[in-house]
C-alpha cells in the first residue's frame, strides 16, 4: 500500500511538473501579484552631501576631516509589512556593496516583491556569518574576493578570512599617521572555529507615516540616508586623534555600534 502510494505521488508530481512546463511554453505566463522596490542610498555627512576630498566636515570631537573612501555591504534585506506579512529577499539576491565612488552601486533593485504596503525595512550592515564561511563558489559577484569588486575595493581580509563590512577613509589634521590619514575598516563575523569579534549589525528603519506601496503596476523607491557623521558621533564619541586606524581590534565594535544608527528614511516615492 505504501509502495503504491509513493508511485502515485511520484506520478502526480511528474504531472504537475509537466503541466508547469507546458504553461512555461506559452508566451504569457500567468501574472503574479508582484512588484519592484528600489532602495537608494544617499551618503551624507550631517546635513551636507558627502563629497570626496573637497568638503571638510567636523565631528563631535571638534576634529575637521575629509573623506576619500566609503564602501559598505548591505545584505539579508527584509521588508516589513503589517500583521507579520514581511518579505525576506531570497538570500542569493540579497548582497550589495554600496560605494560612494560608484553611483550605480547606490541604488539597488529588488524584483518579485509581493504586492503589499510595506511599513519598514531591515537589513544587515555587512555579511552574515554563514556566507562568510561558505564555499567560494557561492561567493560570486560583489562577494567575489578574488577578482570581483571585493578584491578591487579591498573589502576582504585574506590573512584572517572575512569581509570588511564598512570602510571609511579620509584625511584629518588630527590624525597621528605620517600621511594624516585615518582608516576605519570594520569587519568580523564571529569566527569559524573559535568565537571572535562579531561586528554584524542590523539596521531597522520604520517608515512612519509613509508606505512603500508595491503592486504589479507600481514600483516603490525608498530613499535612505546614510549619515557618515554617525560613525564618529554615536553612542561612542570617536576621536580621529585617538583612533586614527581602526581595523580588526576590539575598539571596532564601538564604531559598528555607531554606524548601526547611521541609516534613516528620506522619502518614499511610489511610482
Amino acid at each position, binding site marked *: 500500500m505504501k509502495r*503504491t502510494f509513493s*508511485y*502515485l505521488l*511520484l*506520478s502526480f508530481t*511528474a*504531472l504537475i*511538473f*509537466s503541466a508547469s*512546463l*507546458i504553461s*512555461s*511554453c506559452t508566451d504569457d505566463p500567468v501574472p503574479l501579484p508582484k512588484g519592484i522596490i528600489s532602495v537608494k542610498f544617499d551618503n551624507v555627512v550631517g546635513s551636507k552631501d558627502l563629497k570626496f576630498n573637497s568638503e571638510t566636515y567636523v565631528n563631535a570631537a571638534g576634529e575637521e576631516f575629509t573623506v576619500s573612501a566609503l564602501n559598505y555591504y548591505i545584505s539579508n534585506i527584509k521588508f516589513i509589512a503589517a500583521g507579520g506579512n514581511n518579505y525576506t529577499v531570497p538570500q542569493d539576491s540579497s548582497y550589495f556593496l554600496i560605494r560612494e565612488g560608484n553611483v550605480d552601486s547606490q541604488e539597488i533593485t529588488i524584483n518579485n516583491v509581493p504586492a503589499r504596503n510595506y511599513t519598514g525595512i531591515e537589513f544587515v550592515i555587512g555579511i552574515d556569518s554563514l556566507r562568510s564561511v561558505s564555499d*567560494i*563558489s557561492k561567493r560570486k559577484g560583489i562577494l*567575489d*574576493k*578574488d*577578482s*570581483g569588486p571585493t*578584491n*578591487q575595493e579591498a573589502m576582504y581580509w*585574506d*590573512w*584572517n*578570512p572575512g569581509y570588511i563590512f564598512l570602510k571609511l577613509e579620509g584625511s584629518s589634521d588630527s590624525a597621528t599617521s605620517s600621511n594624516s590619514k585615518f582608516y576605519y575598516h570594520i569587519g568580523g563575523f564571529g*569566527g*569559524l*572555529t*573559535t568565537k*571572535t*569579534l562579531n561586528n554584524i549589525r542590523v539596521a531597522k528603519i520604520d517608515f512612519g507615516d509613509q508606505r512603500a506601496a508595491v503592486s504589479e503596476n507600481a514600483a516603490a523607491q525608498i530613499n535612505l540616508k546614510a549619515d557618515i557623521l554617525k560613525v564618529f558621533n554615536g553612542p561612542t564619541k570617536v576621536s580621529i586623534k585617538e583612533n586614527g586606524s581602526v581595523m*580588526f*581590534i*576590539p575598539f571596532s565594535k564601538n564604531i559598528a555600534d555607531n554606524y548601526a544608527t547611521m541609516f534613516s528614511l528620506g522619502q518614499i516615492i511610489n511610482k
Partner: protein
Amino acid sequence: MKKAVLLFGVLLLLFQGMISCDKASETPDPKPPVITDPPPTDPLPLEWKKPAYFPDPVYDLSKNPLTPEGVELGRFLFYDGILSRTDNIGCGTCHQQQAAFTHHGHDLSHGVDDLLGTRNSPSIQNMAFSPTFFWDGGVHDMDLVPPVPIQNKVEMGERVGNVIEKLRKTPVAGATKQVNYPKMFEAAFGTNEINADRMMKALSQFMMTLVSSTSRYDYFLQGDASALTPLEKQGMTLFKQNCASCHSSELFTDHSFRNNGLIPAKINDQGRYAITLNEADRLKFKVPSLRNVGLTAPYMHDGRFTTLEAVLDHYANDQSGSKDSIFVSPSLDPLLQVAGQKRGIKLSEMDKQAIIAFLKTLNDEQFINDKRFSDPGIGTSL
C-alpha cells in the same frame, strides 16, 4: 509493475514536453553527427596516499581530486613570478626546495621591491595534514592560503584578479620561458577558463604532493633499526621526554598555538591574538612541525635564532649572557614554568647535543631533491 509502466509513460510525456519547448530542435536531425575528434576525457586521477603512520589528511580531496595535469599546473604557478606585482617573486622565492620550502638565510620574509615583512617564512610540507595555516593560524583552508602572500603588500604585492588577467594573456611574447596557461588549465580542468578557484585548487594539488616522509627517522619507523645511531636514538628518547608534548605525533606538532617565552621584538607581534582578539592568545604562535628542521634555519616566528643550539638554549633558559631568556607574561606556556624549578626545560649540554643529533635525522634528502617538486625553470630566486 503496471504502475511503473505508467510512471515511465508520464516521464516520457514529460520529456517530450521539454523538447517541444525548444524551438531549435523542431526540425529533426536527419543523420547522427559525425564524430571527428574523440570526446574530451577528464584528466585521470592521481592516487594520493598518506604514510601509514601519519594522521588522516585534513584537506578534502573529494572537492579537488588530484590529477597529474592539475599538480603540474600547480607546480608552474608555484614557481612563476607572474603571481607578483613585479612579475619576479613566485611562491618558490620564499619557499625554496633545498631549504625544505623555507627562505634560507632570511629571518624575515621579504618580497617585491625588497620590502621586509614581520615573520619568518614557514616551511611548505605536509600541508595536507594541517588544520590551520600561517604563524597565527588565521587561515583554515589550503585553497585560501595562496591569496595571503599574493596580496600581502610586502610579499607579492599583487591582486589575485590581476594575476588571473595576466595568466589569461599567456604565453607572453619575449618571455624567457613560454608558458601557455590557458592550455594548462584546459588540461587540468577540462576547459581553458582561468579563474581564481581553479588557480587556488591547482596550487593546493601541488602542495598536497609535498609530503615529507623519507627521512632517516622514517626508515627507522618503518623498521630499519640501523637508520639511527646510538646518539640519535638517545636524542629521540630525550626528545620524547622533553619536547614531544608540543611537537607531538609523527608530524612533530600538535597544531596548537603557544607562547614559548620569546621576548617580544620591537614590533611587538601579538601572534594568534590578532586573529582571535582573545587575551589568552597574546604572544602565541603556531607550534611548527620539526620535520626538516635541520634545513629550515633561521628559527622561530621572527627567525631570531640562527642555530638549533640557540633554540635549545632558549628552551633550557640558559642562553649565554642573559639572565632569564624566558619572557614571563600571562599567556606563557605552563610547560615552561614548572613550580619549584628554574623556568624552562631542564637540559644538560649533552642532552641538547643528543636532541639536535636526533632532530637532524628528520632531514629528508629525497624530499628536497625530488624533481617532481622542483622549479620547472620559470622561477626566480632572490
